[in-house]
């Protein structure tokens, strides 16, 4: 089976700070991969390098056959980044819905403006996705009238309406009140069940255990463990992983 995301020899520096150290990882189609680690371990940066919100300092990103070398310049390079962004949907910690657009306008913005999709077609697609996150009845509201959980579900619908091959989630529940986390995780489970390839940066160990096919553990810019959740949570190989899991356990109690 060929992988849908392939990251090879990725390095990222912020100034002198070496935040990603020679990372290579592959993700298979329909796989759900959770990325865990302490804050500052580089997991968000890794995710943001995949769609070039951060330009990697060195290395190659390949998404669904589109290969981008870091450090490229000019029109061709920008076109490749654009192609990668079309193949990836992203969900942010802070939702980042467009406050001047209604829910429906938020969701059709990408297809209409970026893909040039006919408006009626985009609306039909958007309504389908809003329905699947349970928020079709809010389509004419503005984001400021939604709860955090609802905003994030709209953000997921917005990303899905671009019909990406891979979904990237950057701590999608970290900005939410505890009682709103469940509704977002449920939507994410549904997306996973529908066969979407997902890479999820998260602190939700329950979600990782239940939904992920693989869990990657990051520490100081490196992937220190890559295992199935059951193995990882019951028998962590690296002492740092064990410490991390213990910390979450105490946190959960």
């Amino acid at each position, binding site marked *: 089976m060929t992988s849908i995301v392939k990251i090879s020899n990725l390095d990222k520096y912020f100034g002198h700070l070496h935040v990603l150290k020679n990372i290579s990882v592959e993700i298979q189609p329909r796989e759900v991969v959770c990325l865990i680690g302490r804050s500052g371990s580089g997991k968000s940066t890794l995710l943001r390098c995949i*769609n070039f919100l951060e330009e990697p300092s060195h290395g190659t990103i390949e998404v669904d056959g589109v290969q981008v070398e870091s450090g490229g310049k000019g029109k061709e390079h920008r076109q490749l980044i654009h192609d990668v962004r079309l193949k990836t949907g992203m969900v942010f910690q802070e939702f980042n819905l*467009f406050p001047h657009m209604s829910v429906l306008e938020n969701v059709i913005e*990408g297809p209409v403006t970026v893909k040039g999709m006919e408006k009626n077609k985009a609306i039909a697609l958007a309504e389908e996705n809003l329905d699947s996150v349970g928020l079709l009845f809010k389509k004419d509201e503005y984001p400021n009238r939604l709860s955090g959980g609802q905003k994030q579900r709209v953000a997921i619908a917005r990303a899905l309406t671009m019909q990406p091959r891979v979904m990237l989630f950057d701590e999608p529940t970290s900005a939410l009140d505890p009682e709103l986390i469940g509704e977002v995780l449920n939507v994410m489970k549904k997306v996973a069940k529908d066969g979407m390839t997902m890479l999820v940066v998260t602190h939700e160990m329950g979600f990782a255990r239940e939904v992920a096919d693989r869990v990657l553990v990051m520490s100081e810019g490196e992937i220190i463990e890559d295992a199935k959740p059951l193995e990882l949570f019951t028998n962590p190989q690296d002492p740092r992983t064990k410490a991390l899991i213990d910390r979450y356990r105490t946190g959960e109690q």
Partner: protein
Amino acid sequence: MNIFANQTPGAPKSQAELLFESHQRKARQFQVNVALSWVTLLAIILFIFSGSHFLGIKTIQLDGNFIRANVGYIAGGIVQTLQISVISITFATILALLAALGRLSTFPPIYALSTFYVSLIRGTPLYLQIFFFFLALPQLGIVPSAFWSGVLPLSLNYGAYMSEIFRAGISSVGKGQREAALALGMTPRQTMQRVVLPQALRFAIPPMGNDFISMTKDSALVSATGFVRELTWRATKVGRATFHNLEALIIAAIFYWIMTILLSFAQSRLEARLSKGDR
């Protein structure tokens, strides 16, 4: 707006609702009191200019015949005043937007051009700029009409000041908004047009409205050229001719004031419409 409007009718009112209603009552009462005070102040001013004798006080007598004869002529200046203001604010807005984008540019010459323009224009008086166009440029063989000698400096001047508003508006749009747009696959240009500028504009509309209102009054400076028949020019002309400056300037002042009140009203309506979906 009643934020509890969509609650079940007949349901007992919650504490928050009762608190909200009591706040609203207080706010309404305050507005009524302010309105009454305004009426009182107006009545005092009208009394001062009524020309009557009251409790031994002799108030100011205005020449009714002069007013009746000239009010129409002076009112005619409103057209020019608005013309100057509307044309100038349009140019100023375009200049301000360009200057603001220039200020955010990472290309040194563009950044320099923008800051140079703002510094030069804000560093010199508007009054001088008007004379520069009207009196200095002709020396170089460029002879703008009195009208354009007013409109161009007003545009340049307000453009420089308003560029700060646009810049602040663009900077107020969070990094997350740009990232969300880029992640959707938008080009930097689409990101600017579809996501950043609409939000920046909403931020900029209230101060822009203030600037437009203040411009209708600064347009009076154009009368200094002596050839543009706007409100102030007409008032000083007929006032000086028969030594009725008091009456003439009061008439002009009232027209400016009414225009300002109407424009402020229009501005608050526009703001209310734009605030939909505000964070």
